């Protein structure tokens, strides 16, 4: 075991995703001048995952395009990067982490942004089929493997009708593949949107030629002829796939924190943090998919798997590490691009008892607002970005919206928002008027 000589304690960031990159950027922006070490288990610098199921899958972009910040950024800000090696243990008493290759790194403060990993399919035959035959989508390497198969695969089966599954379906059917989506629940996007929105997206996919099978409980996988995979459902239906992609959710990477004795939330599965992203150890913060933050309404904790959460919670964590206290209290938001449709969701729909539709889904542009009595909780906007942006401010600034205003598509929601920008010069200019000019003569 060796101690990294390059490391000068300071702040160590464990995790190689968007939260880690944002943490580092904010640390430097807030003026932190100490050492920063980034430890990531993926071989490359932090990159954006959302395009993986879209532009990158389509082959339209190179890996460098995905980078959150270019390598020069890390060099310029004096960040030591230890990539391709996972952290294997945290010694909280000694303020030291151990890497998988045996090296140890000292820290003054530690930031955990280990993110998530895909939930694997666990049905009979999955292990046998897994080797090169069952594809997941989380990393650049995952998509590179899928793209390699796309050259020969015609029939694609996607297990899971969530955001990832539907985005991949949209992209692949447009590339000419025959696509089937198997969803265990009775509709697509079951966890995240109301039936009306789910029905709209289901219809759009079917219109583009995607076959969507709901209530499809996969009970087994078999190896078929010529590298195909046979998917067996509980009702006896079988689907043959040249390419099988599984998108059934993710699991938080909290084992490192758990083993170190940090408090984790049983229900949401993440590392418990407060609104300042502090964990149960005063020297450790956590941010992003792996962190469970206080739920604004239930009193419990929740874990958010969104870009917005990764970015904003990481900002909060970094300011906390810099000794400032800026609470993270924002309406969560997420988006999904499918075909020429952009779904933008803001707020949390749980507890909603009333839905108010704005616009006509038949036009491809509509928003669905969720209320609990008269209180606005959330909105799901399809190709109505102005509604989305205004609703985010309504929620964050606690501004009321009536059902009638929400339903009236001609009513600009931005009218409810206070003017934010005021242009002014510090020093008043000399007046320019007839009398002033006359006096100056």
């Amino acid at each position: 075991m060796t101690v990294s000589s390059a490391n000068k304690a300071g702040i160590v960031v464990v995790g190689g995703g968007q939260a880690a990159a944002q943490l580092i950027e904010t640390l430097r922006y807030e003026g932190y001048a100490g050492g920063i070490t980034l430890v990531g288990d993926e071989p490359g610098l932090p990159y954006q995952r959302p395009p993986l199921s879209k532009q990158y899958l389509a082959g339209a972009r190179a890996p460098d395009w995905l980078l959150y910040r270019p390598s020069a950024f890390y060099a310029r800000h004096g960040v030591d990067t230890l990539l391709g090696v996972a952290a294997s243990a945290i010694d909280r008493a000694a303020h030291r982490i151990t890497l998988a290759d045996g090296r140890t790194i000292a820290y003054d403060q530690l930031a955990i942004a280990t993110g998530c990993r895909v939930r694997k399919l666990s049905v009979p035959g999955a292990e046998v089929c897994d080797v090169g035959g069952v594809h997941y989508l989380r990393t650049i390497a995952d998509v590179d493997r899928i793209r390699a198969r796309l050259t020969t695969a015609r029939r694609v089966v996607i297990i899971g009708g969530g955001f990832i599954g539907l985005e991949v379906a949209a992209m692949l059917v447009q590339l000419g593949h025959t696509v089937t989506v198997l969803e265990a629940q009775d509709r697509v996007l079951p966890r995240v949107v109301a039936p009306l929105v789910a029905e709209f997206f289901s219809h759009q996919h079917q219109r583009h030629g995607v076959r969507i099978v709901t209530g499809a409980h996969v009970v087994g996988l078999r190896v078929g002829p010529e590298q195909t995979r046979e998917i067996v459902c509980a009702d006896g239906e079988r689907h043959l796939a040249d390419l099988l992609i599984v998108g059934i959710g993710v699991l938080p990477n909290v084992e490192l924190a758990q083993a170190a004795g940090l408090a984790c939330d049983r229900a949401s599965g993440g590392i418990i943090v407060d609104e300042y992203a502090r964990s149960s150890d005063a020297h450790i913060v956590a941010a992003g998919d792996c962190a469970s933050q206080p739920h604004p309404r239930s009193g419990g904790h929740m874990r958010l798997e969104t870009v917005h959460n990764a970015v904003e919670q990481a900002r909060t964590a970094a300011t906390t590490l810099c000794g400032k206290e800026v609470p993270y209290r924002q309406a969560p938001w997420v988006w999904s691009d499918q075909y020429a449709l952009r779904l933008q969701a803001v707020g949390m729909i749980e507890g909603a008892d009333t839905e108010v539709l704005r616009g006509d889904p038949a036009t491809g542009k509509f928003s669905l607002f969720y209320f609990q009595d008269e209180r606005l909780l959330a909105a799901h906007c399809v190709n109505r970005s102005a509604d989305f942006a205004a609703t985010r401010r309504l929620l964050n600034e606690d501004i009321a919206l009536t059902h009638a205003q929400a339903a009236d598509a001609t009513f600009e929601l931005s009218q409810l928002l206070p003017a934010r920008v005021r242009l002014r010069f510090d020093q008043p200019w000399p007046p320019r008027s007839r009398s002033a000019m006359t006096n100056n003569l």
Partner: protein
Amino acid sequence: MNTLNKQLAFVIDLKRCIGCDTCVVGCKMENAVPLGQFRLKVYDSQQNFQLEKPVGLYPDLSMSWLPTMCHHCGDAPCVRACPTGTLWRREADGMVVLDRDKCIGCQRCGEECPYDALSFDPDIGTADKCDLCEHRHADGGGPMCVTVCPTGAIHFGDINDPASNLSRQLGKHAHQVLNAEDDVRPNIHYFAP
């Protein structure tokens, strides 16, 4: 933060601006800015950019105009707010660049900009902003607003080049930036109206 060798910037002489909106029209035509959206706005004395009117009581009336667009800030809040790296600051010339292919239409940039300089293209669902008419630079052209301004109120160039027209202008006249207390190092400098 590091020092940039080149920093493209505007100087706008408010005494010369007559509020004709030719810059607005030139910008919209050159960049096909959608209806109702603007990369450049000209505000009046009361900060309206439409239905402009003077301040004061007749005959002691006063009116000035304030053209403003992206300030290509040295410490741009939009760049910090953007969750997808759509907006970034290009070191080669200090321009704040927008990559539409990365934009997810979240409009966080618009929320953070102290100058309301981001617009949003509802047709393609992405942010839109002044790019200094970069496509004209290769042929030696500058931003269209500079070209079309009938009074020569808008100047453009490298603020870090002491020999540039911009630097010479700044050396001769008192100037201010907008919203200086925001401390975002904007790159539009104004001369008195």
